[in-house]
C-alpha cells in the first residue's frame, strides 16, 4: 500500500477515526493490527520475518537488562547477529554470491553455491536498524527494556514509519505509545498540512522529474552529455522530494494521532559543505550511523587523523551498502566519505558570512552531491563512469522529452520548490503560507495545493525510491 494511493487515504481515515473513538487502553492494539495489515499489503508472508526479529529483540532487551557482566554483551551480540543476519540473507546474499563467482572464475574455479530467488522484504533496512537501536540503547543503559510485547512490536512496526523511516530511537518513540493523545484540532491540522506538503512534493515534483530521469538514464548509452547533466540535476531534486515527501507523510500521519517523529530532512541543498549536507539529509540514518558505528569505532576522539578519516570512510562505505547491494552504492558511499575527509583536511569554516561566498559554497556542494548521485542512480559502475565522462565532455544536444511541455513542468516545479525552500531557509517568519494567520490565505493555499495536484500531479501511483532499501 503506497502512501500516494487511494487505498492508503481510505486506510488512514479509517485508522485515525477508530483511534480517536477507542479508549486509550485499546489504541495500541488498533495501531498494531493496522500496522500488520499495512505491512501485509506488500508481501503477506514476510510478516513472519518481521515477527522473528521482533521476538528475538524483545527477549534480547529483557535478558540484556537482567544480565550482568559479559552476558549483557552476549545477548546484545545475539540480537545484532539475528538482525544483521536477516538483512544479509535477504539483501546481500545474492550480491556476495555473485562477487564470489567472479572471484572464483578469475582463479579458475566454479561457484557451486546456489542463488536465492527471493524478494527483498519491504522496509527491511529501516525496521532492522530501528530494532537494533533498541537493543543497543538497552545495553547502554539509556532505555529500559519494554516488557509489553505488543508495545514493543508496535515500536518496530508503527505503520507511518515502518517502510522508509524516519528511523526512530526508543527513547523518543516507545513512551509515546503509553501517552493519552486527545483530539487536538491544531495538531491534527498541522499533521494534515505536513502530509499535504509531502503529497505535493511527491506527486508534482518527484514523480514528474522521474519521467525525464528514467527516459535519459535508461538509455544513457545514446544520450548526450547535456541531457545526462540535466537528468542528474533532476534526479537530485527527484530523490530529495521523493524521500522527504515520504518522511513528511509519515511524520504528518503520526502527528495527526498525536505522535512526534523525528525530523528527517532540513533543506539539504542549502548546505555550504558536504558535512553540513549530511547533517541535513536523512538525519535519522546519519545520526544512527554516527551514534552506533562512528562513535563505536572511536569517532573523532582517536589518536591520529588517519584513524579518524578511516572511521569516516568505514561509516560511509557501510552506509552505501545499506542503501543497496550493488557496487554503485558502495562507490557512492566512498565518494561521500572522501569528500568529507577532504573537507576535514581543508578545515573550512562551517558557514560563510558573505552572500556570494555562501552562494558559491552552496553551488559547489550541490554540484559535488550531484556527482555522487550519478552512482546512486546508475545501474552499474561502468554506466556511472560513462555518464560522468559524458557530462564533463558536455557534447550533443539537449533532449527535451516528448511531449516537450512536460519538461517545462519539471523545470517550473524545481523553480517553485527552490523558491519556497529559500524563503523557509532565510525568511521563515515573513513567508508563512500554510501557517498564515489569515484564514482566507490558509484556505486558499489548501485549495490551490489540491488544484495543483489534480492538474500537474503524476497520479498513476509511482513507488517511493527508498522503498527498495
Amino acid at each position, binding site marked *: 500500500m503506497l502512501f500516494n494511493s*487511494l487505498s492508503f487515504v481510505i486506510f488512514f481515515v479509517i485508522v485515525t477515526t477508530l483511534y*480517536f473513538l477507542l479508549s486509550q487502553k485499546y489504541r495500541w492494539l488498533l495501531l498494531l493490527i493496522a500496522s500488520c495489515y499495512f505491512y501485509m499489503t506488500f508481501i503477506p508472508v514476510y510478516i513472519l520475518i518481521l515477527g522473528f526479529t521482533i521476538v528475538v529483540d524483545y527477549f534480547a532487551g529483557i535478558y540484556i537488562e537482567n544480565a550482568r557482566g559479559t552476558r549483557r554483551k552476549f545477548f546484545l551480540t545475539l540480537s545484532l547477529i539475528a538482525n544483521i543476519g536477516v538483512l544479509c540473507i535477504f539483501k546481500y546474499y545474492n550480491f556476495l554470491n555473485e562477487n564470489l563467482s567472479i572471484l572464483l572464475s578469475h582463479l579458475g574455479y566454479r561457484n557451486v553455491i546456489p542463488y536465492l530467488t527471493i524478494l527483498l522484504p519491504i522496509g527491511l533496512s529501516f525496521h532492522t536498524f530501528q530494532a537494533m537501536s533498541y537493543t543497543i540503547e538497552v545495553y547502554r543503559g539509556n532505555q529500559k527494556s519494554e516488557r509489553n510485547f505488543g508495545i514493543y512490536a508496535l515500536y518496530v512496526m508503527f505503520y507511518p514509519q515502518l517502510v522508509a523511516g524516519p528511523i526512530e530511537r526508543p527513547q523518543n518513540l516507545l513512551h509515546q505509545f503509553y501517552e493519552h493523545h486527545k*483530539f*487536538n*484540532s491544531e495538531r*491534527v*491540522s498541522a499533521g494534515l498540512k505536513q502530509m499535504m506538503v509531502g503529497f505535493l512534493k511527491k506527486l508534482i515534483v518527484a514523480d514528474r522529474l522521474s519521467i525525464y530521469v528514467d527516459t535519459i538514464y535508461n538509455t544513457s548509452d545514446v544520450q548526450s552529455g547535456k541531457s545526462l547533466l540535466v537528468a542528474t540535476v533532476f534526479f537530485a531534486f527527484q530523490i530529495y522530494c521523493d524521500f522527504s515527501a515520504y518522511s513528511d507523510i509519515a511524520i504528518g500521519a503520526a502527528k495527526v494521532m498525536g505522535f512526534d517523529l523525528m525530523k528527517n530532512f532540513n533543506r539539504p541543498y542549502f548546505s555550504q559543505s558536504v558535512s553540513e549536507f549530511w547533517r541535513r539529509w536523512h538525519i535519522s540514518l546519519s545520526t544512527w550511523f554516527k551514534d552506533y558505528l562512528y562513535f563505536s569505532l572511536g569517532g573523532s576522539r582517536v589518536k591520529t587523523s588517519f584513524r579518524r578519516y578511516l572511521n569516516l570512510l568505514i561509516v560511509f562505505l557501510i552506509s552505501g551498502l545499506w542503501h543497496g547491494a550493488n557496487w554503485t552504492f558502495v562507490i557512492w558511499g566512498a565518494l561521500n566519505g572522501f569528500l568529507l575527509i577532504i573537507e576535514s583536511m581543508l578545515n573550512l569554516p562551517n558557514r560563510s558570512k558573505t552572500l556570494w561566498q555562501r552562494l558559491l559554497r552552496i553551488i559547489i556542494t550541490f554540484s559535488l552531491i550531484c556527482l555522487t548521485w550519478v552512482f546512486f542512480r546508475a545501474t552499474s559502475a561502468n554506466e556511472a563512469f560513462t555518464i560522468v565522462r559524458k557530462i564533463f565532455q558536455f557534447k550533443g544536444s539537449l533532449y527535451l522529452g516528448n*511531449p516537450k*511541455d*512536460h519538461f*517545462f*513542468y519539471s523545470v517550473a516545479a524545481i523553480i517553485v520548490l527552490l523558491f519556497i525552500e529559500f524563503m523557509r531557509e532565510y525568511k521563515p517568519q515573513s513567508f508563512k503560507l500554510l501557517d498564515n494567520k489569515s484564514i482566507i490565505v490558509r*484556505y486558499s493555499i*489548501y*485549495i490551490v495545493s*489540491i*488544484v495543483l495536484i*489534480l*492538474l*500537474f*500531479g*503524476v*497520479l*498513476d501511483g509511482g513507488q517511493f525510491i527508498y522503498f527498495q532499501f
Partner: protein
Amino acid sequence: MKEIKVFSRKLILLMLGIIATDVVLGLFIHIIFDKQKSGKYFITTYALNKANQDILIFGNSHAAEHFNTPLMAEKMKLSVFNFGVQGENMLYYYPVIESMLSYHKPKLIILNLDYNELNFNSDDYQRMAIFLPYFHQNKFIDSAIFLMGQKQKYLALSSLYRYNSTVGYILLNSSNKAYNKSYKSLGFDPQYGNTCQSNATTDKENEGNKKQNVKFDELKTRYLLTLIKDIRAAKIPLVITTTPLFTGMGENVHRQKLEQLLKATGVKYWDYINNENFKGKCNLFTDKSHLNKEGADLFTNSIIRQITESKFITSTKAN
C-alpha cells in the same frame, strides 16, 4: 467532542470549496480546451464531433505524417481529413471511429495499422488518458477511459483531473499559428529532414522474428474485428494500410497475425512495408519508420492511384 465537531465543519467547508473550485475552474479550462486549433486534442475533438469529410484517415504517427491530405484533396477533388494521432493504437481508433460512425457516413475510411498493431503493450492502456477531457461524452469514450483502471471512474469525476498534465499543451495549441495537425493542414503533420546522415540502418524491426515473449492483445483483436464489421454494416468502404519501413521487414509472427486476421475478414489491405519505392531510400525517411514530406508525397500519390483504380469512390476525379 465540540472540538471534533468544529474541526469536521471546517473540513467539510474546505471540501466544498475544493469541489466548487474544481467545477468552476474545470469549466473554464474546458472552454479553452475546445478552442484549440491544432494538436492531438483538436484532432480528437474534431473526430468525435465534427468530421464531415468524404475520406477519413485514422492511425498513429504513421498516418498523421504519411498521408498528405491537402494533396489528396487537391488531386481527388474530395474532402479529406487526417485523424492520425502520434503514439496511439487500436484502443484509441475503436472508440473514435465508432463515435464518428454515429453521426457521419464518409465515402471511404482508411485505417493505417502497424505490423505489430495487435501486440499487447500495457503502456497503450495508459495512453487512454487522452480521452479524459471527453469523459461522459459517450459509452465508447468512457469504456476507453476505464481501460486505464477502475479507479478512473472516481478520479474522472473531478473536472480538473480530466485535464491533468494538459494545460501547457492546451495553451500552446490554442493560438492559430500552428500549421501541422490543424484544420489548415487537414490534420496532416509533415516532417522534414532525412536519415541519410545518421546510422538508421540497424534492423531492430526484425526483432519480431523472435517468437519468445510475443503476446497478442485479445481486446485489440476484438476491436479491429468489430470495427471492420460495423464499418461494413454502414456500407462504407474500408482500406487497411501499413506504411513503408526504411529497412523493410521479413515475415514474422506479428505481421502474420495481422495478415491472417485481415485475410479472414476479406478487407482490403495495402501493405507498403517492403515497397521498393521506399526501401533503403534514406532521403525519404526521417527515421526507420517515419517518412519525411517528400516520402509522404510519394506515398500519398501511390495511395491516390490505388484508390482510383479500386473504384471505391465512383465520384473521384483524380489526375
